[in-house]
């Protein structure tokens, strides 16, 4: 007898790369369940604040619930503080929100991307229950095990834990980062059955938010 499971995995991959003055957040738009594709154009990217964008893979119903909750909390913050939430603040809020459901978790693997208070790109990567870390780049989702080693090869910089501290900035320009992301997804689509159809790329910089799409293999 198969017990009822409240969770389902809708597949897909998300990537975010932080640059000196920009942040690139990308995800595929395939939503699947088991071996079936439910839809080819479902966005996993959600704008939480002017300088803060969330991409989540995993169970899309939990993703939707999480987005709604964070949007509501952001609205309250704006009413109370008369300003938008910064990306580091949203990062902490997301961590606490995830941990409050520690015993019935949101089955989402999140990547938060945006600009910090100094205008530099920042990426926060999470596990399902809220442990988080600020990093220079991250991949989450079904294709993460394929994409992360490639990003490590191209972008790995000295660990922030090293003392004396070594400079750890992604030297890539914005257009190079976008090309890198396209390469990542083209490769992940080849070897991950849950990744494909369309790639949605969102770029956040001082000039605002820019969105573009690239078709991926639909098989």
């Amino acid at each position: 007898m198969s017990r009822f499971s409240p969770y389902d995995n809708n597949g897909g991959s998300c990537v975010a790369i932080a640059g000196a003055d920009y942040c690139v957040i990308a995800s595929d738009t395939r939503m699947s369940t088991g071996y079936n594709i439910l839809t080819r154009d479902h966005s996993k990217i959600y704008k939480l604040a002017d300088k803060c964008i969330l991409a989540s893979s995993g169970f899309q119903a939990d993703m939707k619930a999480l987005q709604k909750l964070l949007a509501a909390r952001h609205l309250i913050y704006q009413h109370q503080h008369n300003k938008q939430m910064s990306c580091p603040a949203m990062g902490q809020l997301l961590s606490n929100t995830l941990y409050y459901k520690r015993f019935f978790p949101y089955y989402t693997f999140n990547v938060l991307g945006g600009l910090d208070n100094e205008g530099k790109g920042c990426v926060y990567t999470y596990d399902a229950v809220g442990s988080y870390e600020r990093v220079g780049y991250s991949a989450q989702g079904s294709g993460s095990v394929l994409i992360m080693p490639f990003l490590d090869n191209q972008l790995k910089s000295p660990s922030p834990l090293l003392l004396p501290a070594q400079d750890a900035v992604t030297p890539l320009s914005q257009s190079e980062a976008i090309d890198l992301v396209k390469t990542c997804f083209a490769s992940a689509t080849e070897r991950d059955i849950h990744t494909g159809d369309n790639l949605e790329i969102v770029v956040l910089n001082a000039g605002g938010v820019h969105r573009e799409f690239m078709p991926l293999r639909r098989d």
Partner: protein
Amino acid sequence: MKLDTTGLESALPLFGANCQMVDGFTAAPAFDLPTTLDFDGFQKEAIQMVKPAKGTTTLAFIFKEGVMVAADSRASMGGYISSQSVKKIIEINPYMLGTMAGGAADCQFWHRNLGIKVCRLHELANKRRISVTGASKLLANILYSYRGMGLSVGTMIAGWDETGPGLYYVDSEGGRLKGPRFSVGSGSPYAYGVLDSGYRYDMSIEEAAELARRAIYHATFRDGASGGVASVYHVGPNGWKKLSGDDVGELHYKYYPVTPSTVEQEMVEVSGA
């Protein structure tokens, strides 16, 4: 469903002497099945038992000059390394440190909660800093109330208060131990080996830091679930200070440099023919 047991039938008896055992074996071949209701679940539980618990290495010890705290920086999800740059030494406040082992989210959340709700509130309400004894006791009580619910926390609270240096081990089973030397995590047996054999109460700060660094290095060398950067912190009367952060791969070549050996016969380039 009848199990196919053709593979279990043995052609030759195993021992000549013990006929009883041999008779039983050739007569009715069968798998040894555990007497449980949920056979599939039992298998999973058995695997879980063998899985390395709390993949990490952290250590702390008290010595003449205060408390030395060190940890690696690897986070693993099963066999996948999810991060090589995790901060496992958490700065609760300027004079108290906590180490992280077990569930990353559990440790991060409860240490932050300890710093804000417990320590800072105590300072504001009582106009004096909370002691290490007090902070560790409050954390242990909180974790005890969640006992059995699946939290995984193996932490050491290290600090300097009015009574001098303090070190406590606190875990999610509700345990709390006061002691001079602790190591927590899957790499702890290796770290204990180096730490216990090299420990002396009257060491200088540099000697103690080097001992801590070496212990973490040796643990990362032998334990697959530990690695990344070995961070070393010192807690003195004026609070904590980070002493070093070294990549363990580079530490290896520092401790065991590659000596150029005499070459017997050099390989020469063969011209393409």
